[in-house]
């Protein structure tokens, strides 16, 4: 499988490609519910969320994580991701604009593979972190 990056070309502190998600909208959550099978009603059923005391539906955490994962496949190539971990810090609401970004923190070799490791995050238009992540991708 073709790795897009060379181990020796990458160093700690390097930025990985940024992905911008403009104008998060309810259809994003509905489409993701259909695609993923996550039908937790908090993400599309306004009546349900209001009854639970929440102002409006919000994004599935895994939708936002999916958007963040694009930084990795853009960086290293699809099929090159070895580990991807996310922690959900804050809800993503309709109307938000998200910036998905990350940086390399280290390199290692495991099972004969050259791995690039790093941290990543999704921030909203107010600069608040909504998802924090970490990763390992394979390099050539």
């Amino acid at each position, binding site marked *: 499988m073709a790795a897009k990056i060379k181990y020796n070309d990458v160093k700690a502190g390097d930025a990985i490609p940024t992905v911008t998600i403009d104008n998060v909208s309810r259809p994003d959550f509905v489409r993701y519910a*259909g*695609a*993923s099978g996550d039908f937790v009603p908090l993400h599309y059923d306004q009546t349900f969320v209001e009854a639970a005391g*929440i102002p409006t539906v*919000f994004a599935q955490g895994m939708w936002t994580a999916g958007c963040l994962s694009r930084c*990795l496949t853009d960086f290293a190539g699809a099929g090159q991701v*070895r*580990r991807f971990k996310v*922690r*959900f810090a804050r809800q993503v609401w309709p109307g938000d604009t998200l910036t998905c970004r990350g940086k390399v923190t280290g390199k290692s070799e495991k099972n004969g593979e050259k791995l690039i490791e790093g941290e990543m995050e999704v921030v909203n238009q107010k600069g608040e972190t909504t998802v924090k992540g970490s990763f390992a991708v394979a390099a050539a």
Partner: protein
Amino acid sequence: MPIDKSIVGKTGKPFTMPIEWSKVREFARAIRDPNPVYFDPELAKKECGGIPVPPTFLQVAAFWMGEDSMPTANFDLRRILHGEQEFEFLKPIFVGDVLTGTSRIADVYEKEGGRGGKMTFMVTEIEYKNQKGEVVAYARGTLVETGQAVGG
């Protein structure tokens, strides 16, 4: 709800999950990923050796798991948060593969939270094997039941 430690180690019935191209395309569209390897089989074959799946694609397991595949705690839907999710990949996964997933409750614990009050955490791990019997991936998720509604 009092914490029930006895569910740790409980496994679900293994479930079969065929990796289908239409589902991969739909998923890539849903996360607004225009990467042509999910949409152009010729290119995908050349670049990746087959049509790969997005890193979070294994979330579609929800379609393939019956109730008996999901060992679960009795959480209140209005108070659930998805706290963390991790994917570890050991071998490639391509469209055409048929995976077998087995879900296991890895841990259950309580913590005092901030504005949400007492929180209960449940960690589940799904192990995926391919049609050759090779372990290809692990998906580990942490669900949190908060003391009150989650969006306030």
